[in-house]
């Protein structure tokens, strides 16, 4: 069973990680049954009085409860309606949240869950009983459905029956990168505030970080095109054996509640709702949309920032980079354990300087920390002769233990390797948000035609724009991001800025190299997608056919050695790059008629985007001039 830690934001001045509390410690020594049967005494939610007279007794106890369990979440729950916004990496998220709130006698939330969970026997029922309600993944213009659903959520908020919980990212992130937020539900929970029906709404970003994710291999397969199995209970039971494995720890971090009122201050003119009765639904205006969108990004960023990173995340980044470098050099695979440890310590210090929320056990020696991380993920790495490498050869053998290796086609072997690579990448991705901005700058310096600040900015701005479907990059914050990246790189002695020129310092090359390599798979991936659209896309390619077709194209490229990044096979990357091209207008999606969903490619534009990504073309002048 996984161990689990909870932290509630008490004092931001305290070092965050010192404050995790092991909530299972007590339970390890007592029976599960007693726990399950213990008296559940929720703190009164708002002023809602319990309906049963028998609960009167417990009301006396509540006042005691209140005295010693005072923390911000509780405060927030008492003052204003609360919306819990956990990150979504696993099925476990639902259960964990309810479990923690139960443990702390807080009101259990109502959870907006995807419809597909309902189909799961027993579990669906369990979720429903723990307060979940199920929503369709898309409404497809069903106005009544939308109306009923949004009214349900709003009533929950307005009357304060229970906190509302939903996932900003909309679905589980298969890559462990935060997904760009979905706005529908956020719109609904903000509406009562904007229309003055409640004084304020508190949004609580919750970051749940897993040392090892239950679904790790499952996700990788899914990204490679094995379709997501239908959520079923028997599936869950079959997966039970995975529970006997060690999955490390889970950290749950309740972020500082964000007040919608303070978010909206000076941003939204609430008077706009004065002229139409509030019950008449209206499409939110441009300003509301951009307000909700910005808020959503802020919240996802807050989730990212509070994610606890384990040493393994850094190791995975290093091992992946090493793997690709060795591939090119065709050297002996793997890294010496000492070297890995040295690099990990270097990366640990760097990431801390960049503000990472790193959970590195300080009381043990670095080599111990490294080896214990490696042993937890022994499915992904192999240690032989003191060298550490990704467990790629094993991959094939594991799936088909009986058959000889020769029976595997190169394509199958590649896919098997890709599972391992993508699993590793999903851990590396957890650290991406730390390095993203500096990495964009590093790549910009790399691709820009000169080291002139304006030139680099243009290049930065281009890359940032290109990748804004891939990573969490707050809309309209290009300048801030650029300045943040400059600040971090200058602070860590990587760069110097002399008279609008960037100068890379002697010791800065190591960091810059690491950062560019971090982003390189994505750069290459986007270029390959562009190349596919220019060279290989058939007339009348539809959106549905896109992923399989581009996958085939990429497999070909990898097998012929033209592309070294196996992780480009991730359908997530492929879809994101298509979305970016659609957004930029390089590809158009035809609507209506027989050609529904057909992609129309502007080859000239796609080609020039590809060249710009590869640094062959200078970036066009960025629109934002203020620097």
């Amino acid at each position, binding site marked *: 069973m996984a161990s689990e830690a909870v932290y509630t934001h008490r004092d931001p001045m305290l070092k965050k990680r010192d404050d995790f509390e092991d909530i299972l410690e007590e339970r390890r020594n007592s029976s599960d049954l007693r726990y399950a049967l213990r008296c559940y005494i929720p703190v009164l939610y708002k002023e809602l009085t319990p309906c049963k007279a028998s609960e009167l007794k417990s009301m006396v106890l509540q006042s005691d409860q209140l005295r010693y369990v005072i923390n911000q979440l509780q405060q927030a729950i008492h003052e204003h309606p609360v919306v819990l916004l956990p990150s979504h990496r696993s099925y476990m998220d639902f259960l964990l949240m309810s479990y923690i709130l139960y443990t702390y006698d807080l009101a259990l939330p109502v959870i907006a869950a995807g419809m597909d969970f309902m189909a799961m026997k027993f579990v669906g029922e369990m979720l429903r009983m723990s307060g979940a309600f199920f929503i369709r993944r898309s409404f497809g213009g069903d106005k009544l459905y939308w109306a009923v659903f949004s009214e349900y959520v709003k009533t929950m908020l307005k009357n304060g029956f229970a906190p509302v919980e939903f996932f900003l990212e909309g679905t589980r992130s298969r890559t462990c990168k935060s997904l760009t937020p979905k706005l529908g539900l956020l719109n609904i929970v903000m509406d009562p505030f904007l229309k003055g029906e409640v004084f304020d709404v508190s949004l609580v970003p919750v970051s749940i970080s897993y040392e090892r994710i239950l679904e790790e291999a499952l996700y990788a397969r899914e990204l490679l095109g094995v379709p997501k199995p239908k959520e079923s209970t028997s599936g869950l039971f079959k997966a039970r054996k995975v529970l006997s494995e060690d999955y490390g720890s889970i950290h749950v971090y309740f972020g500082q509640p964000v007040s919608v009122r303070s978010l909206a201050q000076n941003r939204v003119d609430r*008077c706009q709702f004065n002229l139409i009765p509030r019950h008449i639904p209206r499409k939110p205006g441009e300003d509301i949309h951009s307000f909700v969108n910005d808020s959503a990004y802020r919240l996802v960023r807050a989730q990212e920032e509070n994610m606890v990173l384990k040493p393994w995340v850094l190791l995975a980044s290093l091992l992946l980079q090493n793997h690709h470098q060795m591939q090119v050099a065709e050297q002996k695979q793997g890294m010496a354990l000492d070297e890995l440890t040295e690099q990990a310590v270097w990366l640990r210090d760097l990431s801390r300087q960049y503000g990472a929320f790193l959970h590195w056990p300080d009381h043990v020696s670095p080599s111990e920390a490294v080896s214990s991380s490696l042993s937890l993920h022994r499915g992904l790495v192999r240690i032989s002769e003191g060298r550490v490498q990704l467990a790629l050869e094993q991959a094939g053998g594991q799936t088909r233990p009986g058959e000889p290796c020769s029976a595997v086609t190169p394509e199958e072997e590649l896919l098997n390797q890709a599972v391992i690579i993508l699993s590793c990448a999903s851990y590396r991705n957890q650290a991406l948000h730390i390095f993203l901005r500096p990495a964009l700058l590093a790549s910009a310096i790399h691709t820009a035609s000169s080291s002139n600040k304006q030139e680099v900015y243009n290049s930065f701005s281009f890359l940032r724009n290109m990748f804004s479907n891939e990573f969490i990059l707050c809309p309209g914050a290009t300048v801030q991001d650029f300045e943040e990246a400059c600040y971090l790189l200058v602070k860590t002695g990587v760069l110097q800025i002399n008279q609008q020129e960037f100068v890379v310092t002697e010791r800065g090359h190591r960091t810059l190299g690491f950062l560019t390599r971090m982003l390189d798979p994505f750069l290459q991936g986007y270029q390959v997608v562009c190349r596919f659209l220019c060279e290989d896309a058939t007339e009348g390619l539809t959106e549905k056919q896109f992923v399989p077709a581009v996958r085939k194209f990429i497999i070909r490229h990898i097998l012929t050695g033209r592309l070294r990044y196996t992780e480009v096979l991730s359908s997530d990357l492929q879809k994101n790059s298509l979305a970016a091209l659609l957004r930029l207008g390089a590809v158009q999606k035809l609507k209506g008629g027989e050609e529904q969903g057909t992609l129309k490619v502007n080859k000239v534009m796609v080609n020039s985007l590809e060249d710009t990504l590869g640094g062959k073309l200078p970036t066009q002048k960025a629109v934002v001039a203020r620097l």
Partner: protein
Amino acid sequence: MASNSSGGGSSDRQRIARQRLSRIAGHLQRPADGSSAIVAAECKAHGSQADVPGEEKTVPRRRQEIMKWNGWGYSDSRFFFNKKGQAEFTGRRYRLSGLIIPGLKDWFESTFGASLQHKTPATPILNSSAVQPPTLNEAFVEELKSTGIPLSHDAEDRVFRAHGHCLHEIFALREGKFGRVPDMVVWPNCHNDVVKIVELACKHNVCLIPYGGGTSVSSALECPPEETRSIVSLDTSQMNRILWIDEKNLTAHVEAGIVGQDLERLLNESGYCTGHEPDSMEFSSLGGWVATRASGMKKNVYGNIEDLVVHVKMVTPQGVIEKSCQGPRMSTGPDVHHFIMGSEGTLGVVTEVTMKIRPMPEYQKYGSVVFPNFEQGVACLREVARQRCAPASIRLMDNEQFKFGHALKPQVSSIFTSFLDGLKKFYITKFKGFDPNRLCVATLLFEGDREKVLQHEKQVYDIAAKFGGLAAGEDNGQRGYMLTFVIAYLRDLGMDYYVIGESFETSVPWDRVLDICRNVKARIIRECKDKGVQFSPLSTCRVTQTYDAGACVYFYFAFNYRGLSDPVHVYEQVEHAAREEILANGGSLSHHHGVGKLRKEWMRDTVSKVGMGMLKSVKDYVDPNNIFGNRNLL
């Protein structure tokens, strides 16, 4: 109502007798055509002022003779804590006068965290030397003197006309600080005097600021600091006669300077009333009501000022504006009265008004209903409005205000009454299970003939019962209305002990009433906290008027400012935030206080750019040289 009665005793009786006689005489001498009963028509000759029975009128030229210079109302009426720490109200003018209010101290100390040990006394005497010497336009003064219209540039007179009753205005006076004050005060006696003054002002380019009762709470009377011309305060208080009463059409023609209590009293003597009773009616003037679009407590029966006015005469720099007839309604383009009503002294001076009058009601009855919570109370008021059966006045106070009203209960004389009170309390809180920290009370006033009142009363109580309301007696109702007359005196008491506060109002559609009350009150509390106020503020509201489509909501807000370096600034920031909150929740900029200079910044958003342009173009035509330069509204 009308808890104020001047003087008393035998002189009163004599006066009433004399008036009754003169009325009979008037009836006997009625002209043959009999169209109207003319009481007085001509302008008084300036020399013969002694003829006017001065003791009848409340407001003398020298206001300082009876009124406070740095607080609300009469000099002889004020609250104070006596040696035993009990609150007392001095004077003989009000029902509360001379009584001890035992509960006030505890309420005051517990609500504000104030203490009787920490005093902030006001500057006792108006220091004339601290007032800027007047900038006079000599030519104007000379010509004006030749007309014989009384004028003054005495410092006291000028200071009295330099302010309304906003918190910052009174606070500055208490500290003995004076900003820009008018350079001169003139007291026209009639319409023609005003015409002369305005002509001269135009001729000599002098800034005129009309002054009625001085009860503004919108900074409307503040002299614009940027004004370089000589500022003349045009005090209409001496234009206070009822010129005629037309019993056939039930109208009265009245000079605009008359204050509410005089108008009501004089009309009552003839058996009539206007029924227009704003909370400030003791001191506010008819002209002021017209200029700010005032609203009266009993508007459900009598209407607001715009419903009461039949004909208005206003003197503007372009001449006199008035309609040619007294038709009850006209379709002659936009109603020019609506340029006058709400013009806040920017276009001219209202001199004479023809107003609807009604026979005095035969029977009046107060009442009150207790509701388990504010939500139920609002639902009840909404239902009453839906059925259009609102009594003359219906007001719903929230829990905080209910407690406030309770704290103002005078000492009860008999053990029996206090026993009864205890019983009532027990019945409501224990037997009926009302939470004393949530219940709220609606106060009612019924008017009409006895039978109808009783019938009406039953109808309203039946509706209330549907919303869990319990009738709570006449006494509670009456005390509720008394509160509105003494609240301004109470503010002065608070200011003696580090507590500052004010009220403000809005109107809002029914579906938003609860939301606006909750949100504005919460916003006030939050802003106080954010601005470093050390003690939790009093933040309370009441629904004071019902309409078909909405209601008028009144907020009271006060806090203890100990520990703040600039309390007035904090106060203003909080009030500003509260107003933003009101607007964001669908409330209006003002229901009846007006815009003045205090709320000018929101005018454009309120009436739209085009609306603003319309108002500006009217101003540009009527007063191109900005003679009426108080800079309100626009």
